[in-house]
C-alpha cells in the first residue's frame, strides 16, 4: 500500500466523523497549546529576570558586610549585610591593589524621609562616587551626575531617580536647581537619571544619589559603606577578582579563618545562574502541568481509536479478506492517530503562540516562542499519536477476518 493511498484512506476515515475527530483533536490542541505557551512564558520570565539583573551593571562584583556578631550582639545574628565592617579605606585599597578591577564604586545607602515644598516621600538615599553610573549602569536623563569635585568638597547636591522626581515634583517636571531636604539638610538637585524599571522587589528608579562624603558626614555620621561595587574588565576575570578581593579584605580585617569573614563577595554571574536555575525549575513545573493535559489528550485519541476499531470491525474484515496484511491494517489505524495528533499539534502550536503573544501584550512578560519548543511539541504530539495509536492499531490488525466479517 502506497503512502498516498494511506493518506487518502486516513483522510476519508477522519472526515467521516468530523465532530468526533474535531473533539479529539481539541484535546491535543489544548495540550500542545498549553505546553508551548507555558514554555514561552517561562522562558520570557527567565529572560526578563536576567535582563533586570544585567540592568544593575555588567561584570559586577559586589562586596557587602557580613552578619553582625560579637560581644554586643551575643549569639544573635542580625543577618548578612547588617554589620558595619566595610570602610571607605577598603574601597580605596581595592581600587589601588586589584588591577583587574576597571572601576570601583563604594556606596552608603539608607532610607530617609525627604521633603520638598510641602510634598514628602520616604526613599533610599545612596551616597556614592562619580564612577557609580559606569559600574551600576545608571544613565543620566537631564543635568549631570555627582562629580569627583562634588565628593571632594562635600557638596550638598543630589541626583534624583525619575520615580522620586515624580513623587516630589510631579510627573515629567525638570526640577534642576531646586532644593530638597533630607534629614534636615538641604540638597540642590543637579540631575535626573533615566528610568531603569523595577527589578522584582526594588524599584531602581525610586532613589536619590548624593556624594558619598556628604552622606557620611551629614546623614550617617560615620565612615562605613554598605556596598562596594566593583566592575571587572571582562566576564572571565570575575571569579579571579572575587577571589582577590576576598583575600585582600581578609588580610585587611586580620581574619585568618575564611569561615569567619565579616564581609561577603557576590559575583553577578552567580546571581544570574541562581535566578536562571529558579526560572528553569518554574518552566519545567509549568510545562509538566501542561504535559498532563497533553497525556489526557492522548488518552482521548486512544479512546476514539478503540471506538473506531470496534465500529469498523466489518470493514477491517473485508480489507483483510481482499488481501490486506496485518501491516497494512495497523499502518492505516496508526496513521489515523498520528494525523489527529499532527493536526492537533499544528493548531496547538498556533494557539500557544497566540496565548504567548497575548501574555506579552497584557501581562508584560516578554514571552519567547523558541524553535526548540515548537520542534519539541511537534515531536511530542507525533510520539503521542504513535504511542496511543499503537494499541488500537494492533488490535485492529490482529482481528480474525472471519469473525470480523461476521461482527454485528
Amino acid at each position, binding site marked *: *500500500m*502506497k503512502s498516498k*493511498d494511506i493518506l487518502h484512506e486516513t483522510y*476519508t476515515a477522519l472526515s*467521516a466523523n468530523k465532530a468526533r475527530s474535531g473533539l479529539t483533536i481539541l484535546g491535543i490542541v489544548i495540550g500542545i497549546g498549553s505546553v508551548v505557551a507555558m514554555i514561552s512564558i517561562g522562558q520570557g520570565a527567565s529572560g526578563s529576570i536576567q535582563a533586570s539583573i544585567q540592568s544593575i551593571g555588567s561584570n559586577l562584583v559586589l562586596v557587602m558586610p557580613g552578619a553582625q556578631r560579637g560581644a554586643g550582639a551575643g549569639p544573635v545574628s542580625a543577618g548578612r549585610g547588617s554589620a558595619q565592617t566595610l570602610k571607605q579605606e577598603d574601597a580605596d585599597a581595592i581600587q589601588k591593589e586589584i588591577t583587574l578591577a576597571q572601576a570601583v564604586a563604594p556606596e552608603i545607602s539608607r532610607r530617609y524621609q525627604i521633603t520638598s515644598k510641602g510634598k514628602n516621600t520616604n526613599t533610599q538615599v545612596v551616597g556614592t562616587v562619580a564612577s557609580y553610573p559606569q559600574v551600576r549602569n545608571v544613565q543620566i536623563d537631564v543635568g549631570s551626575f555627582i562629580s569627583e569635585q562634588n565628593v571632594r568638597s562635600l557638596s550638598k547636591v543630589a541626583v534624583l531617580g525619575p520615580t522620586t522626581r515624580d513623587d516630589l515634583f510631579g510627573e515629567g517636571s525638570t526640577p534642576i536647581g531646586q532644593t530638597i531636604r533630607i534629614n534636615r539638610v538641604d540638597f540642590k538637585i543637579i540631575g535626573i537619571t533615566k528610568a531603569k524599571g523595577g527589578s522584582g522587589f526594588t524599584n531602581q528608579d525610586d532613589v536619590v544619589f548624593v556624594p558619598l562624603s556628604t552622606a557620611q558626614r551629614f546623614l550617617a555620621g560615620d565612615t562605613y559603606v554598605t556596598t562596594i561595587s566593583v566592575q571587572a574588565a571582562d566576564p572571565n576575570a570575575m571569579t579571579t577578582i572575587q577571589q582577590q578581593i576576598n583575600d585582600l579584605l581578609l588580610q585587611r580585617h586580620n581574619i585568618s579563618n575564611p569561615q569567619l569573614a565579616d564581609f561577603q563577595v557576590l559575583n553577578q554571574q552567580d546571581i544570574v545562574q541562581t535566578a536562571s536555575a529558579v526560572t528553569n525549575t518554574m518552566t519545567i513545573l509549568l510545562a509538566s502541568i501542561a504535559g498532563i493535559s497533553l497525556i489526557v489528550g492522548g488518552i482521548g485519541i486512544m479512546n476514539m481509536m478503540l471506538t473506531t476499531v470496534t465500529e469498523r470491525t*466489518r*470493514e477491517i*474484515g*473485508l*480489507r*483483510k*479478506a*481482499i*488481501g*490486506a*496484511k*496485518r*501491516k*497494512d491494517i495497523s499502518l492505516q489505524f496508526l496513521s489515523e492517530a498520528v494525523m489527529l495528533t499532527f493536526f492537533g499539534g499544528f493548531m496547538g502550536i498556533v494557539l500557544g503562540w497566540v496565548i504567548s503573544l497575548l501574555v506579552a501584550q497584557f501581562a508584560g512578560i516578554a514571552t519567547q516562542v523558541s524553535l526548540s519548543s515548537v520542534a519539541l511539541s511537534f515531536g511530542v504530539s507525533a510520539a503521542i499519536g504513535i504511542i496511543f495509536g499503537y494499541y488500537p492499531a494492533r488490535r485492529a490488525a490482529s482481528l480474525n*477476518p*472471519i469473525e470480523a*466479517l461476521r461482527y454485528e
Partner: protein
Amino acid sequence: MAVVDLEEGPGALVVNTMIECKNIAKIYKSGEIETHALKNISFRINDGEFVAIMGPSGSGKSTLMHIIGCLDTPTSGQYLLDEKDVSKLSDDELADIRMQKIGFVFQSFNLLPRTSVVRNVMLPLIYAGRSETEREEEAKNALRASAFPEEFWNHYSNQLSGGMMQRVAIARALVNNPTLVLADEPTGNLDTKTGEMVLDTFQRLHQEHGRTIVLITHEQYVAEHAERIIHIRDGSILEDGKVKHRRLTNHNTHQ
C-alpha cells in the same frame, strides 16, 4: 442453445484442476467440547466450473467456504489451490493468496460507505500496490463486466440500491482478475428480482468470461443456477453432481 455450447466448450478443453480438497477436516475447540465442523471432505473443482455448495445452516458450508477462500486453514487434510498447497500458510501468506487469486462476494455486500463506487472497486488493487492509472482502468473494466451502469460510477456506495451494491461488490471481486470468485449467499439480502439479476451476472461471467465461480447457498433455487451442486450436511458431502434442470436466467438481452 448457443449458450449450452459455450458452456461445454471450455469444460471439454480445460482439464486443469483449480481446487483440490483432500480429506479436509476442521475441528473447533471451545474448552472441553470439540465441534467437528467438517469431516473428511474431498472434492475437485476444475478451471472454469460454476459450482454451488449447498447445505442448511450448521452444515459446515461456511467453514468450507472460509477454507476454500483462504480465510482459514483446515485442522487436517490438504487444500491445493492452483496446484499449490495453501493449508499450512501463515496469515500474511494467505492474505497474499487472497489478493492474487480470490474474489469475494458477501451476503451483506461489505462496501465502504461514503466512498465512491470506483474507489470501492479499486480497493483490492490498492493493497496490491498497482499504479493509479492502472487500477482505475481495471476498476472500470470490472464495472463493465458486472454490468454496472456507468452513470452511477461516481456515486457513493451508500446511495445505491441493494442490487446495485451487490454488482459493485462483484466488480470488486473481479478487479484483481482472480482465478476463483467466491460468493457467500450473494442473494441472501436481495429480493427475488434483484437476486435474479445478480445470478444473471454470475452466469454471464461464467459463460462469457470463463470465470470459475463457487456459490455458497442454502437455497435449492439459487443453487440450480450453477452447473454442479455439492450438497453438504453435518460436515460431510451428501451428494455431488451436475444440475439436472439448470435454471438459466434471461440474459439474452446482453447480446
